[in-house]
């Protein structure tokens, strides 16, 4: 089994290396990536079933399942040796399955979405890098390796958000994402160094053992774990470091689906789950996780209510759902949080890919300009609806079961406030996703052109040849140009304007099969994944834990279903049936609406903090450095120069002066000798 794990990890590196070194034709770089990730996927399935067998054997013997570990020494520092390796336990096995499945489907989809992009090869190289980093993070057996891969996924995220780097917004968003998450990573690093300082190990199991025997605990452990959680706050876009995720939507949509919905942002949740025994020993830290998660879930959902960009609605939804996961973990329910991660990865990737299909087909991502796409993009509309219903928590779809497990766990924890936040979030989630679907797919086209005519048989045709690209001005791609490559339109998200004719939206059409098929495949787990974690028959929880979870609470399920139904109903009445005027609602809640549209002013606050406060302090320090520190150095140099200039005057070139000096010297020496000899 260890060799399987190594293969899973290293296959994407092989494709990255091959693409980078051999520079194959763009199409082949895509296929190479799919092949490598497909291999990782197959081996992940193998590893999963092996883990299942081991787990069942362990349960039969009433033991805890032994993780599979394979280590190689990395370097030696004094007497301590540091190791890298792979570790697989049920948690990692599930995460591997999620990452490779979504990654594989997204790569297939990307072939259609990115077709004709001048950076096609670069895109797949970055995707390979990301998948490798994410798998390394999942398989990491110690905090040190996890941190390294943690940073690597951050870099890949940076590269992919800024993929269209000639767009200033994309470049800014990439920087924002990188720097914001770095704030959290600082805490993470300090946290693991603290753990290392007190125990002398980075290894998860040794740390667990240290906690078990009481070598580590109390305030030290709590502080360290809160610091470690800071990393998760940054990476999983929890309040107050959530601001980067909505902006990260500047990247290509498949990237948003893979990195910013399904996998990388879930890394924070995975981190907490991985270090869960440590968190359990530090109730304060766990409480912090729960409160941050619960608040973020609510907070992000409120902003999702008013966003007009289809991807931003989904981005805030992701932040909100990640909050749910953290909330589940925070109230001590590891399997609830992980189960929500599991189902969310599928339905949110589905939603993002469907949104990408909309952007690809309609050339528009503003919800208020879309509309009526149901007739032109039936498959996309259907799959988006499935993902949306799953997200809204409509039984019996996947999202319902996992969300209810989280809410049940919160209910059992007895924290009424957090439960209320969770239930309110469920209501708002149902509302905003209904709103997004109705605005995009129902009604009539509201975009620049009139209602798009329906070209017969247009659905599921291959993409038109990208020859129209070169019409749009833009930066010339450097490096080896490939035939048919052109320059993407600078303004539009999906850069393929020319081939669709003059007015955007005039030819809204269903996306090619290579994009629709991944949608349909993802729709399956979005519907059925929930049955793995039925209350009372919780296979997921028992696989993760080796024991049954607590039973469901009827009242929680009932209220969450009712609230979700209310949300959908309200959304339908407002944006579907138009029984309630959306403008009227906006007017009635004008101050709140303005606050939400401005994202609570947090972006402005952070902007002020950076641009005014930070830059102000920096300027003061720069003044101190340039005037005081440099001034002292310059003063010394100036003094030396002045002394030198003074001494220069003695070098007159006049012989008598020198002779006088010599004589004076002789007199002095003679006197000294006389005095010394005279004693």
């Amino acid at each position: 089994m260890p060799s399987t794990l190594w293969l899973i990890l290293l296959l994407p590196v092989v494709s990255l290396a091959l693409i980078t070194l051999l520079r194959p034709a763009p199409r082949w770089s895509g296929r190479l990536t799919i092949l490598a990730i497909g291999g990782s996927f197959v081996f992940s399935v193998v590893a999963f079933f092996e883990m299942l067998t081991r787990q069942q054997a362990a349960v039969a013997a009433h033991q805890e399942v032994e993780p599979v570990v394979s280590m190689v020494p990395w370097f030696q520092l004094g007497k301590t040796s540091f190791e890298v390796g792979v570790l697989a336990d049920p948690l990692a096995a599930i995460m591997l399955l999620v990452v490779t499945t979504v990654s594989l489907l997204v790569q297939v989809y990307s072939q259609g979405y990115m077709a004709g992009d001048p950076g096609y090869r670069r895109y797949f190289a970055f995707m390979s890098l990301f998948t490798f980093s994410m798998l390394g993070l999942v398989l990491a057996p110690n905090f040190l390796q996890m941190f390294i891969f943690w940073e690597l996924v951050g870099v890949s995220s940076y590269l992919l958000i800024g993929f269209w780097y000639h767009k200033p917004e994309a470049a800014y968003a990439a920087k924002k994402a990188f720097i914001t998450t770095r704030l959290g990573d600082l805490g993470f690093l300090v946290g693991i160094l603290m753990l290392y300082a007190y125990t002398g190990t980075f290894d998860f199991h040794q740390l667990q053992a240290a906690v078990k025997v009481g070598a580590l605990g109390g305030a030290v452990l709590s502080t360290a774990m809160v610091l470690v959680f800071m990393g998760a706050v940054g990476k999983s876009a929890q309040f107050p470091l959530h601001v980067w995720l909505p902006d990260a939507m500047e990247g290509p949509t498949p990237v948003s689906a893979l990195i910013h919905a399904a996998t990388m942002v879930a890394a924070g949740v995975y981190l907490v789950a991985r270090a869960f025994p440590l968190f359990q020993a530090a109730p304060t830290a766990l409480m912090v996780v729960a409160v941050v998660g619960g608040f973020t879930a609510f907070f992000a959902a409120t902003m999702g209510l008013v966003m007009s960009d289809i991807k931003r609605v989904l981005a805030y939804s992701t932040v909100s759902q990640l909050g749910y996961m953290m909330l589940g973990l925070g109230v001590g329910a590891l399997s609830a949080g992980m189960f929500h991660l599991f189902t969310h990865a599928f339905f949110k990737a589905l939603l993002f890919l469907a949104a990408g299909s909309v952007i690809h087909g309609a050339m528009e991502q503003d919800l208020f300009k879309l509309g009526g796409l149901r007739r032109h993009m039936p498959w996309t509309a259907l799959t988006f609806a499935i993902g949306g219903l799953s997200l809204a928590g409509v039984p019996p779809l996947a999202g319902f079961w996992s969300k209810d497990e989280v809410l049940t766990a919160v209910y059992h924890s007895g924290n009424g406030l957090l439960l209320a936040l969770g239930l309110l979030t469920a209501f708002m989630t149902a509302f905003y996703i209904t709103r997004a679907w109705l605005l995009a797919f129902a009604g009539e086209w509201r975009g620049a052109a009139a209602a798009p005519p329906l070209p017969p048989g247009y659905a599921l045709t291959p993409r038109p040849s990208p020859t129209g690209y070169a019409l749009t001005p833009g930066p010339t791609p450097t490096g080896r140009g490939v035939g048919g490559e052109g320059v993407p339109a600078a303004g539009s998200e999906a850069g393929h304007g020319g081939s669709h004719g003059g007015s955007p939206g005039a030819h809204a059409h269903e996306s090619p099969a290579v994009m629709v098929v991944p949608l349909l495949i993802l729709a399956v787990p979005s519907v059925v994944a929930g049955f793995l974690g039925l209350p009372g028959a919780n296979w997921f929880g028992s696989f993760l834990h080796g024991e049954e979870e607590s039973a469901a609470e009827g009242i929680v399920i009932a209220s969450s279903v009712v609230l979700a139904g209310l949300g959908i109903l309200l959304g339908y009445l407002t944006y579907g049936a138009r029984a309630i005027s959306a403008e009227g609602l906006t007017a009635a809640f004008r101050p709140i609406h303005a606050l939400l549209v401005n994202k609570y002013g947090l972006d402005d606050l952070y902007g002020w903090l950076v641009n005014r406060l930070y830059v102000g302090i920096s300027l003061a320090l720069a003044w101190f450095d340039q005037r005081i520190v440099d001034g002292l150095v310059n003063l010394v140099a100036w003094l030396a120069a002045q002394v030198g200039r003074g001494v220069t005057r003695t070098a007159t070139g006049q012989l008598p002066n020198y002779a006088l000096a010599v004589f004076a010297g002789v007199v002095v020496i003679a006197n000294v000798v006389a005095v010394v000899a005279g004693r």
Partner: protein
Amino acid sequence: MITLQHFLVLSAVIFSIGLYGALAKRNVVAVLMCIELMFNAVNITLVAFARYLPATAGNPYGPLTGQVFALFIIAVAAAEAAVALAIILAVYRTRRSVNVEDVNLLQS
């Protein structure tokens, strides 16, 4: 009665005159002459000491030591005068001057 002190005072006076001239004169020939004065002041001292100091265990040859040194100095001074006058001639040929202030190639 003329004592050792008289000789030493005479020597000091001549030496000081020589030193003053060596430092203050601008004509190199005059400087050279002043240096000769200083040599001879030293010579006076040496022979005066030779005349007045008796032979001792540390100085078995008595007066002879000072006199020999004086002779040496006279010989060296003659050689020095020859070399110095040659240098002065060479300088004069290149710079058309025997003024010390004009010989300032080393001035910064």
